[in-house]
């Protein structure tokens, strides 16, 4: 299994280096096994967030969906930023990148979720609010 992981790692590393995508990411999950391992917290958080958003939306809980959606986007952005800070520590990045991903991710998700809820509550996206006709003019 170790040899398989090493081969996969080497091949993906080479592939994405050749393609110029070595530092690319998709929904918070970076390419290549070493990067993937270091970004598991961000990837798992993103997947759970997408599921929660879809689940809340399907259940008609639009406030919850807005909150979970904001948390997901904020979490992904925060995780990327946190990982960048964690990359400053050279050989310690085995620990500091996952730590950076976690702290950036949770902080981003926290403030993203609050922003999502605020946007919804402000009436910007009144998805579940019944349309109330305006009162007739008083004569």
């Amino acid at each position, binding site marked *: 299994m170790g040899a398989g992981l090493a081969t996969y790692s080497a091949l993906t590393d080479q592939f994405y280096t050749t393609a110029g995508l070595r530092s690319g990411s998709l929904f918070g999950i970076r390419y290549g096994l070493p990067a993937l391992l270091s970004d598991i917290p961000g990837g798992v958080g993103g997947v759970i967030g997408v599921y929660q958003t879809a689940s809340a939306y399907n259940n008609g809980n639009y406030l919850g969906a807005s909150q979970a959606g904001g948390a997901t986007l904020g979490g992904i952005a925060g995780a990327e930023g946190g990982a960048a800070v964690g990359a400053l520590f050279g*050989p310690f990045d085995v620990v500091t990148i996952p730590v950076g991903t976690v702290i950036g991710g949770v902080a981003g998700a926290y403030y993203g979720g609050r922003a999502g809820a605020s946007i919804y509550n402000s009436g910007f996206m009144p998805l579940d609010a019944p349309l109330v006709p305006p009162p007739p003019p008083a004569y």
Partner: protein
Amino acid sequence: MTTISNADDSPYSRSELRPILRCLAAAAAVAAICCLVVPSSAVKTALVQIIPSLRRLVPSVANISREMLDPEESEIILIVQWWFAPIYLFIWFYFYPPWSLRMRRTVAIACQTLSEVKRTIGLTIGILFLGAWLLGDFQIIDFPTFYNAKYVYPLTEAVPQLKLIYISRVALTIYAWVGPIVEASIVWMFFVLVLNAKTYLSPQRPLST
């Protein structure tokens, strides 16, 4: 300019991370045991008797446990992991002191792989963010951290993904395992960034004596 002449002044290598990785593995093993072994009520009662004195030191434990169906069980899972926090701190600062010459050399070499823009932005964001986190830990500002549990309590403001800890024992165990290493690492990372800021901004500096 001087060259690296002996092992004591050489930059840290990845293989020297064994102490912190071993401690992480030990904490994970303990977390797994806490997750898999459901203590009997007698054992739970005995464990809880020694918890109150520690519970006061970590505000997140009481806040999270308050929302649990079995508060005693979650207290045990959380507190046992927080016992590792001082060990993590000791390892970080004893084995890899941020103020040492070796750390400056390590930072200088790490900087060579990063562009100046990345270094400058990373350093600025890192110091501000980690500083805000530590101020939140000390309750000087209202910033959420794992120590004060504002990411998961109160439930109305909790991060949706982290609400899983209230319904899943496995999620709670992972959360309990992650919290202390993150908090200890943040303290160390903050000191590394602040004490080596000049090196990050001009990487050639530490190589000259």
